[in-house]
C-alpha cells in the first residue's frame, strides 16, 4: 500500500502550486471572470509550458501522463486557487474524445491543445436531457456528401472561446438509446450554428447552441457512425474525476479560510474559535473533506477500469463530493457570518464555484440512483 505521489507527480504538484500562487492572484482571476474568453492567455500558456495540459494526455496521444492520478493532481491544485479556466472542457473532454476516437488527421489538434493553442467545447447535453447521457434529440441526417444537423444544445461550457465544438447528434435509434449517437467536430463559425453566450455562476462562460440545417462533410465525423456513446461515457468519467478533484481543492481552501477566520475573528471578547459549538462543526467539515479525498482517490484509481467497475466509482465519488461540498459551502458561509455573504471576499467565489460542481456531470441525486442501480440493486 502506498498513497505517496511518484517523484514525477510530486514535482508537477510542487511546480503547479508555486506557479498558481504567483500567477493566479485574486485580481488576475477577477479580470479573467469579466472576460468572455474566461481564461488569461498568459496563464493558459504558462500552464501549457509547465506541461500541465500534457499531463492530462497519455503518451500515445502526445502527452506524458494521462492517468487518473495525474488528472486528480492537476485539478485539485486548480481548485485550491479557485481557477476558472476551462481545462476540463478543452483537454479532458474535448481532447479526450479526439484522442480516443480521432483519425490521425483529426488528432493533429491534440498537439496544439497540449501546447496551449487550441480551445474546444463538447456540446452534448440538451435542454431536456438533464443528466441522462444517452438522451440525444439533436439529429444528423446523412446526405450525398455529408450530414445535416438540427437541434439544440444546452450549457455548452467554454463554447464562446472554442474554435471547434464537438457536437453529439443522433444518426439512428430512439431518443434514449445508447446506440445511434454520433459525434462531429464542427468549427464554431459554421453556417447554421448559433451561440447565445452567457457567464456561469462561479466563473467561466457557456452558450446555448442552436443547430439549424448545419451541413458538415463526412470528415467531420469523430469515430464510427452511431457508436460514440462508450467514448462519451468514458470521457464523462474522466471529467467527473477532474471536477471532483477540483471540488476537493475548493473545499480545502474554504476550510483553511474558515479555520483562519475562527482564530482571528473576535466576538464577546474572545476569538469565535473558542466556542465549542463552532469547533465541533469545523471538525465535522474536516472529516468530510478527508472522506472526499478518499473518494477522489478511489475514482482516480478506477477511472479507466471496465465500465461496470468504473461507473460504480464515478457515482459513489460524485454523490459523496456533492454532499460534502454542500456541507463545506454552507458551514463555511455560516461560520464566517455576514462577511461570508459578500461578493468581494474570497470565500464567495470559492463557495459559488463549489456549489455549481453539483450541476455538472450528474448531481448528488442522479448519482445516488446510478449507484443503487449499479451496486445495491
Amino acid at each position, binding site marked *: 500500500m502506498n498513497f505517496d505521489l511518484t517523484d514525477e507527480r510530486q514535482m508537477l504538484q510542487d511546480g503547479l502550486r508555486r506557479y498558481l500562487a504567483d500567477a493566479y492572484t485574486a485580481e488576475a482571476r477577477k479580470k479573467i471572470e469579466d472576460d468572455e474568453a474566461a481564461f488569461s492567455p498568459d496563464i493558459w500558456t504558462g500552464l501549457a509550458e509547465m506541461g500541465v495540459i500534457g499531463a492530462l494526455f497519455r503518451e500515445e496521444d502526445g502527452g506524458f501522463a494521462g492517468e487518473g492520478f495525474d488528472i486528480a493532481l492537476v485539478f485539485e491544485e486548480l481548485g485550491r486557487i479557485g481557477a476558472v479556466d476551462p481545462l476540463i472542457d478543452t483537454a479532458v473532454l474535448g481532447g479526450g474524445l479526439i484522442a480516443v476516437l480521432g483519425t490521425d488527421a483529426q488528432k493533429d489538434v491534440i498537439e496544439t491543445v497540449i501546447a496551449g493553442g487550441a480551445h474546444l467545447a463538447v456540446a452534448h447535453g440538451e435542454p431536456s436531457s*438533464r443528466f441522462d447521457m444517452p438522451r440525444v434529440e439533436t439529429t444528423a441526417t446523412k446526405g450525398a456528401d455529408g450530414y445535416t444537423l438540427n437541434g439544440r444544445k444546452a450549457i455548452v461550457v467554454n463554447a464562446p472561446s472554442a474554435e471547434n465544438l464537438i457536437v453529439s447528434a443522433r444518426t439512428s435509434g430512439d431518443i434514449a438509446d445508447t446506440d445511434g449517437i454520433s459525434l462531429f467536430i464542427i468549427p464554431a463559425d459554421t453556417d447554421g450554428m448559433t451561440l447565445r453566450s452567457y457567464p456561469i455562476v462561479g466563473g467561466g462562460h457557456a452558450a446555448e447552441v442552436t443547430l439549424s440545417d448545419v451541413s458538415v462533410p463526412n470528415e467531420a465525423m469523430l469515430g464510427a457512425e452511431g457508436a460514440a456513446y462508450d467514448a462519451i461515457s468514458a470521457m464523462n468519467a474522466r471529467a467527473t474525476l477532474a471536477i471532483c478533484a477540483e471540488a476537493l481543492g475548493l473545499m480545502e481552501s474554504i476550510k483553511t479560510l474558515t479555520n483562519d477566520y475562527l482564530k482571528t475573528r473576535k466576538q464577546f471578547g474572545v476569538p469565535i474559535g473558542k466556542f465549542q459549538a463552532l469547533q465541533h462543526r469545523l471538525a465535522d467539515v474536516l472529516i468530510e473533506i478527508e472522506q472526499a479525498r478518499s473518494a477522489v482517490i478511489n475514482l482516480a484509481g478506477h477511472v479507466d477500469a471496465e465500465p461496470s467497475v468504473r461507473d460504480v466509482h464515478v457515482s459513489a465519488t460524485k454523490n459523496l463530493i456533492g454532499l460534502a461540498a454542500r456541507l463545506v459551502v454552507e458551514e463555511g458561509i*455560516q461560520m464566517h457570518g455576514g462577511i461570508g455573504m*459578500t*461578493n468581494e471576499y474570497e470565500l464567495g467565489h470559492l*463557495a459559488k464555484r463549489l456549489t455549481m460542481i453539483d450541476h455538472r456531470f450528474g448531481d448528488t441525486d442522479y448519482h445516488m440512483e446510478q449507484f443503487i442501480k449499479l451496486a445495491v440493486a
Partner: protein
Amino acid sequence: MDLNYTEAEIAFRDEVRAFIKAKLPDHLVDQSKLGTSLTKADYEEWHAILNAQGWLAPNWPKEFGGAAWNAVERHIFEDEMTKANAPRVVPFGLSMLGPVLQAFGSKEQQDYYLPRILNGDDWWCQGYSEPGAGSDLASVRTSAVRDGDHYIVNGQKTWTTLGQYANKIFCLVRTSKEGKPQQGISFLLIDMDTPGIEVRPIVLIDGTPEVNEVFFDNVKVPVENLVGEENKGWTYAKYLLTHERTNIAGVGFANAGLQNLKRIARLEQSGGRPLIENPHFAARIARVEMDLMAMSTTNLRVVSQAAAGQAPGAESSMLKIKGTIIRQEINALTRNAVGPYAMPFASEALDEGSNEEPVGPDYAAPATAQYLNNRKLSIFGGSNEIQRGIITKAILEL
C-alpha cells in the same frame, strides 16, 4: 384542543383573501414569482395600497393608525399574503422603529414620525450592526458625543439592508464608555441627508447590492432625535428585537417556496418522466414538507400563546432555527430541481424591467441566486448559533 380556526377567524381570513383578490397588482405577483428584485417604487406602491385599507401596520394600536390585530389575526394575514406572493412589507419603520417610538418615544416624536411611516414619507433603515460587532450588538463603537444642542456622530454601520432607498436611519450609538458594554448605548434617529454620511453598497454573493455600509464623519444630530433616555438604548434595542422576531418562522414564505418547488418538479423531466415522480427527489420534497407541517403547528402554538397575552420568549429562537433550516432546504431543493440550468449567471434577467430573456426555463433563472441569498437567513437577526445559545440558557438552564 381544536386545530381549526374559529368562525370569526375564518371570516377574517375570507376578508383578507377578498382584499388580495381585488387589490394586489398582478405585476407585483409576477415579479415575486419570477424572483425579479423589487424597486423602491414597487414597495411604495404596495405600502400605499395596504395603508389605504388601514392594514399597513397590523401590530400598531389603533390610536397610532394601526390595525391592532391579535397574534392569530396577524398570522392569518401574513399567511395569506405570502401564499398570494404579495411583496413583503419593509419592516424597518413599521415593525421595528414604530413599536419603539410608541413605547419609548416622546409625544413630539410619535406625532411627527409615526404618520410619516404610514404615509410613506420616510423610508427607515436600521443602524445596528458594525464591522466586528455582528451578533454581539453590545460592542457597538459608533460614538455620539454631546456638543450643545447636538450629538456629533462618528463611526460605521454595516449590513444596512436597503439603506440605498432610505432617508432616515435609526442607530445604536455609544454615548458612554462607563460600566458594562450594554450600558452607555443610546438610540438615535438620524436624517440620511445630514452632511458627513456616506452610503456604500456591499454586493452579495448572488450579485445584488441589497445591503450597505454607512459611514458617519462628524455628523451633527439634534438632541431631540434621541429616543428615550441617554444610555438606555440597549433596553429599547432589545424591545425592538422581540418585535423583529414575530413571524420569525417564515411559514408563509416556506409554503410559497414549497409550492414553487413542486411546480418546477412537475415541469422538469428526469429520464423522460416528471422529476416529481422520481422517488429519490420526491422523498426529499416529502421530508421537508412533513417538517414544515409540524413547524406550522409549532408556530400556531406560539401564536396562540401570544394571543393569550404571553410574550414569546425562547420559543421564537426555536422557530427562527427550524424556520430557516426549512426555507434553506427548500431553496437547495429548488436549485437541484432545475438541474444544469442552475448554472447560468442571470443577474440582468433578474433586474426589474429587464428585457433580457433568461437562459433556460424562466423558473430556473432565480434558483441559484435565491439559494445563495438565503444563506443569510441563518446569519442575520441574531445568527442561529446565538439563538441556540438563547435556548440553552433560557429553557435548558445550562
